[in-house]
């Protein structure tokens, strides 16, 4: 049987979706509070809904099940601390937000093991709490940079994405249609300048600039 909302009128669809968004936000708030309150019954629901996706992602990206468990727990702790500090509201869904945090933490972990090869002593000496604190600020910085990259023009975003991926200038010329490498260089320079201004003028950067 079709659900009732399939039959609603165009104007009602808007109401339905805004109601859905409201519901998603309420669920997000419930999960955030459950984490802060240490409510294991509701945290089980977070596991039921999200862990399989995170596990799949980690397994597909050079990790094992134990890594997925570890990342998931770390992500929940990161979110708890952030909520304690700022009482923020998640604009997307809790699941999407949690998945992004897990993805970034796993990216960090993969790079950490790369670094371990050359810098094992330093890494070993860091306590769990300090490592979590550093991860917190690194995640914050990463989110701010990505957010600001999203605010510049489409053209700049495209050219900078290629540039940061270390794409050779000759290839950037081909994929963007600019006349020469010199023009691309100048364009990269201007776009980067704009991005830097946006990042540095954001209040959130104040606490990150000393790092």
């Amino acid at each position, binding site marked *: 049987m079709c659900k009732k909302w399939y039959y609603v009128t165009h104007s009602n669809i808007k109401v339905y979706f805004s109601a859905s968004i409201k519901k998603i936000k309420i669920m997000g708030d419930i999960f955030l509070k459950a984490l802060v309150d*240490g409510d*294991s019954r509701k945290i089980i629901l977070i*596991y039921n809904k999200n862990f399989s996706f995170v596990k799949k992602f980690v397994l597909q990206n050079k990790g094992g099940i134990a890594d997925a468990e570890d990342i998931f727990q770390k992500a929940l702790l990161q979110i708890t601390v952030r909520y*304690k500090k700022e009482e923020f509201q998640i604009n997307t869904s809790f699941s999407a937000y949690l998945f992004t945090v897990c993805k970034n933490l796993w990216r960090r972990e993969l790079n950490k093991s790369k670094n371990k090869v050359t810098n094992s002593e330093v890494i070993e000496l860091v306590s769990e709490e300090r490592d979590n604190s550093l991860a917190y600020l690194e995640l914050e910085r990463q989110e701010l940079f990505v957010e600001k990259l999203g605010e510049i023009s489409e053209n700049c975003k495209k050219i900078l994405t290629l540039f940061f991926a270390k794409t050779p200038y000759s290839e950037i010329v081909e994929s963007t249609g600019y006349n020469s490498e010199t023009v691309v260089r100048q364009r990269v320079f201007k776009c980067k*300048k704009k991005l830097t201004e946006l990042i540095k003028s954001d209040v959130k950067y104040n606490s990150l600039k000393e790092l």
Partner: protein
Amino acid sequence: MSLEEDILIEKHLKETLSKSEEKYFSEKMATDNSFREKVIFEKQLFETLSEKDWSFIEETNSKEVETLECIFKSDDLKKTKEAISIAYEEYSKPKKKVLKLSYIAAASVAILIAVYSLLYTTNYSHNELYALYIQPNELRSSIIRGEGNKTKDLTIGETYFNHKDYGKALPIFVKVLPNNKNNASLYLYIAISQIELSKYNEAQATLDNLINSDLIDAEKGYWYKSLLFVKSNKLQEARKQLKVVIKNTYFKHKEAKELLSKLES
């Protein structure tokens, strides 16, 4: 920043500096603070916005890190950590599967045969009889829905109890009892934990408290008291309690009859 400086930094980050450029770059880094800051920021941009890299904070004395460390070390966060672990344990327990009717029927017959042979064809030690009749999973959860924070400790306690970790469960239950004196299940959780930990006198006191209370489930105390006596090998006392259960048709009076006949055979 000039375009020349930008190109120099980019070459440094891509590790394509010539020897002379490298020398110039090192000198500039040592003498020009503003240039050094630009290099650090550019490195952060590169590492953060490249999908494959990650921008680590290396050495820092930032107060922000100290503040965060305090939060991560706090008791509040330890509580969250514990709740996450409990949730994960629950989540990773094997899930119940839907079985075909034929399997259920076959399994039921097998169980009936096993139970029959267990109950009627064997002689048991007092410990085995206790294990046979105590059914901790039958206890009604003492958690009342919708009471959020108040039930947090109870949830943790019940989780430990369900994992048979009575040593951890008992102090939690005892702690919350003063605020939950109308909760008969809580007395039973405490008494069973005490029995399992061989604290028989304490268990008897707990069950007497339940029996002497005005609670509707107070009568359940007699059945569990008889099991307490079975476990502690005070079989005479156990018989006495079982007779009370049978005579008054209290909770588990049928099982009481069965158990009494076993004790007397």
